[in-house]
């Protein structure tokens, strides 16, 4: 059940500029994400890809430009607003709650969904208990889906890197996001792990209809997975289109291979 490609624009960033002191991380970047698509952002190291994700989910505040998400335009996003609005993300260097079990990490993703008050939860009283069961049920579904049943109770700090990345994806999924931002979901993985992760990404997109934006260095993976690809270089968007269009772009070839002088 592939999500319908409605061409409806879910997220639009217009003329974003971001500078850290003298470093111009992003220069006048305009970029959009359509509902239901898998959108890739690629580019050489230091091109501004992660900065762009950080602007979208409110970790960085751009110096110029506007962000329109689900029809509301803002100059800057706050992380809390982004999470409320249905944006979930994973991090390049895995940001998990290391002392907590895989299960608790994923449960933490349900934070915004919990409705019952503190006291009822402590007493495990009727409605709160039912709600907790419901959340646990959803979390167990995610654990099944990601095939990490065996490590549910293990503190994530002890898990190998590939599994940590999976738990992190699980936590993001637990938020039931409309837009999922993945920052190098396959970095440091072996071929088999990459194949698993690709499968999860495609399944998330098709089963839940989740819109996905991802940063990735593995070109084969990017070209396979994504509907549209944006290419950044030195903070400027140099190409944007289907994988085939991007592959043919002269600017992209030059950015990756260098220009003959």
């Amino acid at each position, binding site marked *: 059940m592939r999500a319908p490609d409605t061409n409806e624009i879910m997220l639009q960033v217009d003329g974003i500029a971001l500078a850290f002191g003298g470093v111009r991380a992003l220069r006048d970047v305009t970029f959009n994400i359509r509902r239901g698509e898998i959108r890739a952002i690629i580019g050489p190291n230091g091109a501004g890809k992660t900065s762009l994700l950080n602007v979208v989910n409110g970790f960085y505040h751009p110096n110029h430009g506007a962000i329109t998400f689900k029809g509301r335009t803002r100059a800057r996003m706050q992380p809390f607003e982004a999470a409320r609005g249905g944006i979930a993300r994973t991090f390049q260097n895995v940001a998990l709650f290391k002392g907590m079990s895989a299960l608790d990490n994923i449960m933490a993703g349900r934070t915004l969904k919990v409705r019952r008050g503190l006291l009822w939860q402590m007493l495990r009283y009727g409605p709160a208990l039912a709600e*907790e069961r419901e959340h646990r049920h959803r979390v167990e579904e995610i654990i099944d889906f990601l095939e990490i049943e065996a490590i549910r109770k293990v503190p994530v700090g002890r898990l190998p890197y590939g599994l940590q990345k999976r738990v992190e994806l699980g936590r993001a999924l637990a938020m039931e996001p409309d837009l999922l931002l993945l920052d190098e979901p396959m970095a440091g993985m072996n071929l088999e792990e990459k194949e698993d992760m690709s499968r999860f990404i495609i399944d998330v997109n098709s089963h839940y209809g989740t819109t996905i934006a991802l940063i990735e260095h593995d070109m084969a993976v990017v070209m396979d997975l994504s509907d549209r690809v944006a290419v950044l270089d030195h903070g400027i968007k140099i190409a944007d289109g289907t994988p085939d269009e991007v592959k043919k772009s002269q600017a992209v070839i030059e950015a990756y291979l260098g220009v003959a002088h």
Partner: protein
Amino acid sequence: MVALGQFLEVLIGGLMSGVLYSLVALGFVLIFKASGVFNYAQGAMVLLAGLAMVRTLDLLVANGFPPWAAIVLGIGFAAVIMAATAWLIERFVIGPLVNQDGLTLFMSTIGVTFVIEGAAEMIFGSDVYPLRLFPTDAWFVLDGLFPGGILINKLDVWGALIAGILVAGLAIFFQRTKTGRALRAVADDHLAAHSVGIPINWIWFVVWLVAGLVALVAATVWGTKLGVQFSITFLALKALPVLIIGGLTSIPGAIAGGLIVGAGEKIAEVYLGPSVGGGIEYWFAYVLALAVLLVRPQGLFGERIIERI
């Protein structure tokens, strides 16, 4: 039989007073667990809570309120003061220092200590204020078995009971509620906590509020024991060996550490004291803590620190 009776009396007395140390240590553990900050101001917070409570209580009783109403209102008012303190600390000290080094945050809590101590004494006075919330007389149990029975202080029993309830409550709070989970999450990783929509500033307020309320509970028991007075802030120093022995991140550790320190120093005082001229009670806990540091730096219940290379 006399020897055994005496040993039991010393042991039980030690364990009970150890629980009272745990009450203070718990406040440290809470804040450290949830924000990685070693809160030097915990002792000052006990003083503030105690003064706010006892002064309100005295004022109300002097104005003809029935004692039970005065106690309820006094504790309620002290709780409000602790909430206000938590808010101010989050807003003006810890909040602006987000993502700073642990040592920076620790230094800031030293500053907070002086402000709280000064403000508390300025507003509520600096005398010794007696407090009578719990009975302070003693029971003599098992007097069929031992001549004269075993002396157990009723206040210590109350203290142990209250500490037990507090620990159970905190354990449930941390394990079962979304706020408890959020607290642990914030302690582990700020950015990740942000990304799942946990409002960090609110969480920090909650942490300091809970630590303030634990300080209030400690103040009710210690205030009854010693009277509410400035020297109550030195309890923070007594809590240090408890923390080192139990582990800075463990609530059960704070209790176990308190029991070990309490029982250890009383037993040492009674059985070793005479041979070295007494006064062991004052330093024994620190030697014990040093020994634990040498063998298990993370404490008996602390999380093992494993560095991946």
